[in-house]
């Protein structure tokens, strides 16, 4: 019965009734079915995204150990973070190092490969697929384990170096090099920015290059004066995405250091520290506060990028 009357209300054309419909039923007949179809998404969005986010904001002002009820402590989690937590400072340092070095290197690498692939060679789809492959495997546990094996003291990298008579250190377990192996791993996964660069390169009008070659411009000059300026929107997009991904990076550091961030906290990524606080030491409140600080840092970075973008991003109009 209910289903039937519901269907009637839905299907009746607006104004096809003798009585003037109330405001509510007018709104319902105009948009109701649409919202009804959106309902699964709404439930998911509010139940699984907005709800947890709001809860985590609340938890960030509490002490919560999972077993007992959260206890309100005001801003003390945040105060501690900025005044009395050397591990917080260390994890920030490690994460900024990682982002500052891995993102530009990765983008430069992605652009270089995209330029190479954009020369109309045969078998392009195959090369594209091959270069993209590391990104598909990227966040996987298997690759991190492979990395561990490659860069260990008696790993493949050192075997290779040994042929030149170089005795390499155990890269992965030496605090001076461990972060760099993770940066290298990130750079190696240049596939998705490369694909986007490639698409961007295809959109640059050919007549500009023709004009440039008529004027006798060198390849170097063409790159700096035509290709790069016209590609800046793509560079902008890629850098924002990669910076956010860089801050969120977790799996490689977790696998390579067994979740410890060692040696000497040299691979203690921010997310790894957050994970430790939450799931190794059961301080969900503090971990929630850490998560909100990360969100704010990423938002600041992104906002800053947008603010400066009008000085260096050229939209083709």
């Amino acid at each position, binding site marked *: 019965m209910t289903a039937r009357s519901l269907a009637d209300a839905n299907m009746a054309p607006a104004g096809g009734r003798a009585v003037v419909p109330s405001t509510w039923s007018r709104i319902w007949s105009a948009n109701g079915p649409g919202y009804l179809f959106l309902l699964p998404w709404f439930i998911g969005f509010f139940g699984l995204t907005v709800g947890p986010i709001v809860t985590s904001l609340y938890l960030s002002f509490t002490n919560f150990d*999972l077993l007992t009820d959260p206890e309100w402590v005001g801003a003390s989690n945040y105060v501690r973070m900025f005044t009395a937590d050397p591990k917080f400072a260390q994890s920030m340092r490690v994460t900024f190092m990682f982002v500052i070095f891995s993102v530009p290197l990765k983008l430069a690498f992605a652009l270089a490969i995209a330029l190479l692939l954009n020369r109309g060679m045969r078998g392009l789809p195959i090369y594209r697929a091959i270069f993209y492959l590391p990104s598909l495997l990227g966040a996987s546990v298997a690759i991190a384990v492979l990395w561990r094996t490659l860069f260990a*003291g008696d790993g493949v990298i050192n075997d290779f170096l040994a042929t030149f008579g170089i005795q390499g*250190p*155990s890269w992965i*377990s030496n605090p001076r090099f461990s972060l760099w192996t993770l940066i290298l791993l990130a750079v190696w996964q240049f596939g998705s920015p490369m694909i986007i660069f490639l698409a961007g390169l295809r959109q640059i009008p050919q007549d500009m290059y023709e004009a440039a070659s008529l004027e006798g411009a060198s390849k170097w000059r063409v790159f700096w004066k035509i290709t790069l300026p016209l590609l800046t929107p793509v560079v902008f997009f890629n850098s924002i995405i990669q910076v956010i991904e860089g801050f969120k990076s977790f799996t490689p550091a977790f696998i390579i250091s067994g979740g410890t961030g060692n*040696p000497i906290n040299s691979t203690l990524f921010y997310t790894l520290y957050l994970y430790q606080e939450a*799931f*190794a*030491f*059961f301080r969900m409140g503090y971990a929630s506060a850490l998560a909100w600080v990360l969100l704010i840092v990423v938002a600041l970075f992104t906002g800053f990028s947008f603010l400066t973008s009008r000085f260096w991003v050229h939209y083709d109009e």
Partner: protein
Amino acid sequence: MTFNIGRRQFLMGSSALVAASAIGGPALAQDKRMRLAWWGGQARADRTDAVSKLYAAAHPGVTFDTWWNAFNDYWPKLGTEVAGGNAADVYQMDYRYLVEYANRGAIAPLDEYVGKGLDLGDFDQDQQDGGKVDGKLYAISLGANSVSMMVNTQAFKDAGVDAPTRDWSYDDYKAHAEAFNAKSNGMRLMADGSGNEPGLENWLRQRGKALYTDGKIGWDADDLTEWFKMWADLRAAQVCVTPEDQALDATAAIDTTMITLGKAATSFANSNQLIAFQAVNKAPLDMVNFPRAKAGSGGGHYRKPSQFWSVNPKSAMLADAVDFVSFFVNDLGAGAALGVERGIPCAKHVRDAIAPTLDAQSQIALNFVSNLGDLQGKLPPVPPAKAGEVSTQLTTKAQEVAFGASTPEDAGAAFAKEAADILART
């Protein structure tokens, strides 16, 4: 029209389903479904499942629903389940987490069941006491074990050096290093134990101190400085592995320990782990006590409850859960299936029954734990709730000294302060 009918049929069909499940609920509930959770590997899972089958066979209508995980992944999952109010009926508990769970009412006190469903007639008294918090019994030990060094006997044979004996002190290891290194092809005599919490505890106890007393640290900065100095000395004399090699072993997982990686001939471990170590080591392994702090000093070791069963106080089948725990530690069939994989059985009749049937490695473990002699001291009180975090910090601090980022003096003082801070933090 057909559309309407279809929808009606759908509605009727789904209400029928709802009704069916409503009726089905109580009917199904007559079958008791017991949920178990533990940490460990495949070998432990096989043995545990074997006991579940035995129990189910003896108790018609009982079925089991289990999950297990590696130690580090077990606690987040268990904590989340307890917080969500849907934790297993019976779950494995560790000495380190016992106080935390007991204080928060997440495990049930079992005193009222002793002798009435929970048979502890010939259960070792020290193992019973190990499961008590503030005098109340919260956990039933599944086996006694002790810390022990795993020893690669082949490596010592190949190097022509005598394997370590129960009398060896750290100095003795040092005295044998040169002869060992001469023929060992880069393998060192021992792992670097400076960041190993059980190693530190054992050494402190031999000096009359403790890792924790009354929930506070039982040592001072000078003890730690001396500890770090001793290891700096062993490192310089090439008795133990390099810092880079030791750092490969981030979490003391068996497959990354120095002995398994072939970097050292002896590694710090637990007696019940011999079975698991041997499974990933080609060379035949033996075990010996942790080194003595100095010649003749003892009392560092103790018979630790390697792990417990605890019962969820919110379990819908509390009495059955207790009955299962009692079966697990008393039934001879269960004892035979479990062997000494979780440690030496605590009920005397089980221990006596399985002793003659054990394989060589299990015999080694049983003999080691049964014959600690002067090495054995009193069971220390249950460690404070934040002990795990202190242990993590010790590893980091030891690495700072090993890699030259800090001196033993600075690290000793810094660690004493950090450990106290961690314990004081809520």
